[in-house]
């Protein structure tokens, strides 16, 4: 994880430059042999493998879920994070009660829908995380340039401040702060694909219970 240096820093200037360098090194060091655009500690998995969330009957054999209007409506409702998990059992039972003789096949369609909707939502999220990482990389490059420029003007700690050095120092401070804040929210950002997986897994489990 991206962290501030714990030791070796001398004074605010050194701290700023050092932290900019450490911030740059962080994600690269944590991710050997993987996509350089991927900033998370978790290994990048481009999609949710169906077999990790579903062990029920073949979803293709159940027929196209989108053609079964009731199943599709329920799938959208279940896939939405606005639907609390506590309501899932009631919604499924309500569906089974009116689903007719092929209720089990239709339940499989509901899962197929939840899986597909969640998968596409997750794919968008994954692109978003990569965009976010590229933004951080650009900001890191700028931090490095600003740090270099400041070192050139203000080589030693006892070099007197000039309006230019003070302005640069201020800018570096702000950019570092923005970088830090974004780096901190990265942990949360990286967990969002997992939150989607948790939901689809739990819904899959509850549908399987009714088959």
């Amino acid at each position, binding site marked *: 994880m991206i*962290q501030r240096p714990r030791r070796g820093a001398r004074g605010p200037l050194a701290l700023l430059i050092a932290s900019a360098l450490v911030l740059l090194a962080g994600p690269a060091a944590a991710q*050997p042999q993987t996509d350089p655009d991927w900033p998370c500690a978790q*290994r990048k*998995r481009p999609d949710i493998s169906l*077999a*990790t969330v579903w062990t029920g009957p073949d979803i293709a054999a159940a027929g196209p879920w989108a053609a079964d209007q009731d199943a599709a409506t329920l799938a959208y409702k279940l896939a939405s994070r606005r639907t609390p998990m506590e309501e899932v059992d009631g919604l499924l039972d309500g569906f089974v009660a009116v689903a007719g003789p092929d209720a089990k096949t239709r339940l499989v369609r509901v899962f197929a829908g939840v899986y597909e909707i969640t998968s596409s939502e997750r794919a968008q999220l994954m692109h978003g995380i990569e965009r976010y990482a590229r933004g951080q990389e650009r900001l890191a490059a700028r931090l490095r340039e600003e740090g270099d420029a400041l070192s050139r003007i203000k080589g030693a700690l006892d070099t007197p401040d000039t309006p230019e050095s003070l302005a640069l120092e201020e800018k570096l401070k702000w950019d570092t702060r923005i970088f830090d804040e974004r780096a901190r929210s990265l942990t949360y950002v990286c967990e969002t694909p*997992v939150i989607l*997986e948790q939901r689809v897994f739990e819904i899959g489990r509850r549908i399987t219970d009714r088959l």
Partner: protein
Amino acid sequence: MTAFHPPAPSRRGAPLRALGVALIGAGALLAADAAEAYTVFVSNERGNSISVIDSETLTVTKTAKVGRRPRGITTSPDGKVIYLCASDEHAVQVIDPSSLKVLRKLKSGPDPELFALQPSGNPLYIANEDDNQVTVLDVEKNKVIAQVPVGTEPEGMAVSPDGKTLVATSETTNMAHFIDTGTFKIVGNVLVDARPRFAEFTSDGKKLFVSAEVGGTVSVVDPETRKIIHKITFKIPGVSQETIQPVGVRLTKDGKTAFVALGPANRVAVVNAETYEVEQYLLVGQRVWQLAFTPDEKLLFTTNGNSNDVSVIDVPNRKVIKSIKVGNAPWGVVVSPQ
């Protein structure tokens, strides 16, 4: 049946418990195949708690708050104390298994993640993930005996059954480091696949299994020559290769079977530890990381960090028999030795 142990004088309620154990034992004699009752302790990384499970009823009997970000968990050989890595407290906590009170805090070095105890019960070898070192700690005196610099992000720790060799895996350097427990010097390194997370010796000490989370393999190493004998690979229909991320490994005492937790593949692989064939994949909960047998090896408990539950595997029948909800993000698991 477990040998009868006289109740420890410090534990209130112990005589009653011992009576319970005796009664359960009598029941076990009647039902020949019934399992013994053990206590299972699960660390919940985000719940900042430990959950206690009764191995007979397979229910959570207690939950207790502990230090922040609890991960590695183990017990002393006599079962009298639980050791817990409270990573964000930068300490190892010593916990009373009955009252679940934190008795002491030990000097673990920064960010302890996982550890291994010398078979005699002392010292404790702790992986300091953020500091690239292994801390050797005398648990009686709470004194750091040595700090051994290793590769980047050490995590997996294992002590050979004879207690002479410590193995530490480093997640970023991709190595298993062999450390002499007499001199605390690294005596050899084996390069394994990317991000080694866990190491486990066979009970005869002749083989070492090292899992690689990103590499997706388990390397079987000859500790004598420090050469890789075999690399176990996994393939699950319908599951992408990058989803198969081996972490926890446990071997039966006879050295014949290995159980490997495959992370977000949500499965535990059952591997023939002699031919290295994967014989079965058992579906458990989400992001399965750590495993622990009951001492009689009838049950295996798995921590599923994303579905917040523990799966119970019937070992002889190779079947998942139950899922038990625990705290938030279960990480480590240990079963009391008695």
